[in-house]
């Protein structure tokens, strides 16, 4: 397992991982501060989103608490023009590529099913059916091969793709098929598995008896395991293998060993299926406090941490305010993008509902605020 930061925040590079250590030596203090700021920001946002769900402002929230190291580290290891195919918990990765957090709030509030522009953000829509996005990423990467956007050595030209999924998704056939298609086509691609130990209530042993980073070997995709709570290791390992992919060396499977500190979603009660001792064990390995220890050892003072804490409060207040300000979607939203080209049945049904609603004088009945639409997996 690649680990560059000890639990106490001491940086050291084991000889066999020198290639990753070199990538950290290229970073400057400003990069370290950015990593910390974003991890703290996304955690503060996560707590605020959970509170908003509890207050009925969102149908559901999917917390990523505990996985900030894996997400911010890997997110910054992805090149600015590379494409990202997430699952549904990648809020941290999203902010590394400039996705507006309110897009994610809107989705979980039930305003839409996603609705951000993946061509613009290069961060694709959340995939709720597990593993499906891995195939989309592979297809996209095949397209890069066909276009000659791989292995030319021109940094303006070459691109790669990364897909995120969890330990639970590795059981889905689509992940295996994606590994196979990636290998056959030697795609410029990283498979990034956040093994957070739990798929709702099922421990990782329910999904696999082989370490996840070795699951690609049989398909011809080499794998590596990284400490997912070590933001520097996650950055370096992702950057190295994305660079290799862009350079035409083919796909890699990265398993980031981490832990879902929170519930699967706000509909879940993890106290029913796991021990408090286990949670405490992982809390002691928290990615943010570990990195804070590192930064303090680098001489970063209290002022910085105060500033980050204050910035978190500001963001939380902004998200809260923006959530309250969200308007209800127009009924047309249900119909307008089912097809790209006109479709008579959809047009007919839209016209019918518009007429029906206007005769009733607008929305006469709405579901109670705060009604949950249940869980996602």
């Amino acid at each position: 397992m690649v680990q560059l930061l000890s639990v106490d925040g001491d940086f050291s590079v084991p000889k066999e991982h020198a290639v990753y250590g070199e990538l950290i030596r290229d970073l400057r203090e400003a990069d370290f501060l950015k990593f910390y700021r974003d991890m703290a920001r996304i955690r503060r946002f996560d707590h605020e989103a959970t509170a908003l769900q509890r207050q009925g402002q969102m149908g559901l929230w999917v917390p990523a608490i505990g996985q900030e190291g894996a997400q911010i580290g890997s997110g910054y290891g992805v090149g600015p023009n590379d494409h990202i195919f997430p699952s549904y918990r990648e809020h941290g990765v999203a902010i590394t590529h400039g996705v507006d957090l309110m897009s994610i709030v809107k989705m979980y509030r039930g305003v839409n099913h996603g609705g951000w522009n993946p061509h613009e953000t290069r961060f694709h829509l959340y995939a709720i059916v597990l593993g499906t996005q891995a195939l989309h990423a592979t297809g996209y990467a095949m397209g890069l091969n066909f276009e000659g956007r791989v292995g030319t050595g021109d940094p303006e030209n070459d691109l790669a793709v990364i897909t995120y999924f969890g330990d639970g998704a590795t059981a889905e056939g689509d992940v295996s098929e994606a590994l196979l298609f990636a290998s056959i086509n030697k795609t410029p691609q990283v498979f990034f598995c956040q093994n957070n130990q739990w798929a709702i209530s099922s421990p990782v042993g329910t999904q696999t008896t082989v370490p996840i980073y070795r699951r690609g070997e049989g398909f011809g995709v080499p794998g590596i395991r990284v400490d997912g709570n070590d933001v520097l290791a996650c950055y370096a390992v992702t950057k190295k293998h994305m660079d290799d992919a862009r350079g035409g060396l083919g796909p890699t499977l990265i398993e980031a060993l981490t832990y879902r500190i929170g519930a699967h979603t706000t509909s879940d009660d993890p106290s029913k299926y796991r021990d408090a001792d286990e949670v405490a064990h992982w809390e002691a390995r928290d990615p943010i406090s570990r990195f804070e220890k590192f930064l303090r050892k680098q001489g970063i003072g209290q002022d910085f941490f105060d500033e980050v804490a204050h910035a978190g409060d500001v963001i939380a207040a902004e998200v809260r305010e923006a959530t309250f300000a969200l308007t209800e979607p127009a009924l047309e939203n249900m119909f307008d993008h089912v097809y790209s080209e006109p479709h008579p049945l959809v047009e007919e049904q839209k016209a019918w509902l518009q007429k029906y609603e206007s005769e009733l004088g607008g929305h006469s009945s709405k579901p109670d605020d705060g009604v949950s639409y249940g869980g996602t997996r």
Partner: protein
Amino acid sequence: MSNSVELSIAKAINAGLAKSMRDNEKVLVFGEDVARLGGVFRVTEGLLDEFGDKRIFNSPIAESGIIGTAIGLAMRGFSPVAEIQFDGFIYPAFNQIVSQLAKLTNRSEGFLQMPVVIRVPYGGGIGAVEHHSESPEAYFAHTAGLRVVSPSNANDAYWMIQQAIESRDPVMFFEPKRRYWQKGQVNLDEAPQPLHSAATLRSGSDVTVVTYGPMVVTALQAAEVAATEGINLEVIDIRSLSPIDFNHIVESVKRTGRLIVAHEAGTFVSISSEIAAKIAELCFYHLEAPVIRVGGFDVPYPAAKLEELYLPDADRLMEAVDRVLAY
């Protein structure tokens, strides 16, 4: 004078694919055994020689992977044409088709377009083993976000495949496999009509027979038989199963007052269920008889030695004609 050639349906699809690939370099063709072999029905024969292995290539035998990667390629700006080798092999891809391909445009509020064509040889009548003779079109017609079409003759096959490829929406392209070798004149100059419109192939005043795909020929045969008995059948090939050109059917039924809907698939919750319901709604005061449906049975597609009993033929259509005229 228009430029016309005689082609089989298989060759017409081949020619249509080649035309699209020549016109648009973003068109890719892939699936199981489509490259050197040309597919198990030879529909893609010769395309490898003309376009090379970056435009047409064999996929691993993994249908979900074929459609999932087609989606990714479409996101990158390609126009993938994926072949599913046989109707009964499409189900491993069902999740990618129904939950992803059909929904991504809606999920992205229009930012993503999905110009993907899925070619599926379908239907029975070739004496095949299990899973090679099915008619699964209703599953896909039921799914919002997909378009579903099926040509019945060579000219339509040539043009509809090109129109499907040009569509910015996903199109399920069901090919009537037992008619692959049926020849017809193909007008190479001019598309006959828009993709999602129906065609009247024979005019008549007594009974409207609506069908599509492999059953069109059967309906035309029944019309010949009926004519000898002094009964004039009007035969409509709907060509598009989603959306359905109801205006075309309504216009006919208002004249004839009688409607038979026929297909190979079992009739329970089928394309004919939808047409019967809709026509009852739209033509209530014009109908002289209930809408009668003629289809396969609601059983797993039978073993080859029983398929003649399963598949509706001209006699079964005539039995329905007698019933609908008895009112």
